[in-house]
């Protein structure tokens, strides 16, 4: 099953306003340090990088590590300058890739 993401971006904002952006993605974030029922280590499977772009311009980037929780939640702010698209991408182990886009109207 593909990853599910929940995004919270205000659909409308005033020019110059500071807006909050919240994202939640389903991912087990397996640390690589746990053994399975037979004692074999479970291979690491985490998201390694999260990037947010606003009309193609990078506004936020985060590196993720094994100690982060499953289903990582990221909240940050940016300044609403123009109408357009806010895109978030998550990349990780085993070729994991997910992307979500939301539109924002700036008045």
């Amino acid at each position, binding site marked *: *099953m593909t990853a*599910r993401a*929940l*995004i*919270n971006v205000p659909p409308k904002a005033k020019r110059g306003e500071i807006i909050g952006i*919240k994202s*939640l993605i*389903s991912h*087990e*974030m397996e640390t690589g340090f746990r053994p399975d029922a037979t004692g074999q280590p479970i291979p690491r499977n985490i998201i390694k990088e999260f990037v947010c772009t606003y009309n193609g311009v990078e506004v936020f980037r985060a590196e993720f590590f094994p100690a982060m*929780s*499953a*289903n990582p*939640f990221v*909240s940050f702010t940016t300044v609403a300058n123009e109408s357009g698209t806010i895109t978030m991408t998550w990349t990780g182990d085993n070729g994991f890739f997910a992307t979500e886009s939301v539109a924002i109207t700036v008045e």
Partner: protein
Amino acid sequence: MIAWMPVWRIVAAAAIVCATYPAIAEIPMSERKSGYEFMGPDSRAMQDEDTANPGMLSVLDGEALWKRKAGAAGKSCADCHSDARTSMKGVAARYPAFSPAVNRPVNLEQRINMCRTDRQQAKPFPYESKDLLSLATFVGRQSRGQPISVADDENTRPFIDNGRAAFTRRQGQLNLSCAQCHDDNWSGRLAGSPITQAQPTGYPIYRLEWQSVGSLQRRLRNCLTGLRAESPALGAPQLVDLELYLMWRARGMPMETPAVRP
């Protein structure tokens, strides 16, 4: 290992706390509180906002499963029950419910699996599997805000009484009953964590300690392990009776599924 240490300390502390207080009766209706009210502001905010509540990921998975055809009958849940937002509203608030087919109460997960085997002619989902929890969370979500209202009639009463007996029976190496903590000492703390009233208002819950959603039975088995008592298998009648009693005890309280708990 990290997860086990606090449990060990909690149960040791429980033995000390509970030994010093006299037993009191069931919690008066007006003093009942959901586990939500024992949480800090961060955890509350996480539950309150659908885009921050990780349980909602499970609801989305459940919604996809609701519409997917399965089994030899080639039917989806939606083929019979159509739009869950109307057909499933308030349903989870009435479970566990008496099933004439098995002549005893069944919980929501068991009811979903009965539909799977009888109507869809598909294999039942294993307990605590992602698919079963997703469907239960999705169905439970449709009852959010609805008052808990399990049947209290001649069919269910013997099983409610069974559940109450299990709740008040001392068990395990620590020789404690559920009631000694959750009825008698719910305003206290154990190893820094609040003792709650064990009101099952938001199951399946997203438990931060688990890093996933889990059922009420999983939570009950946690407590039993803490008492160093023998845990019945998932789906065992004793656990369903205990679930039924706890839901009866929380009657009238609003459903919160999917709740977030620490």
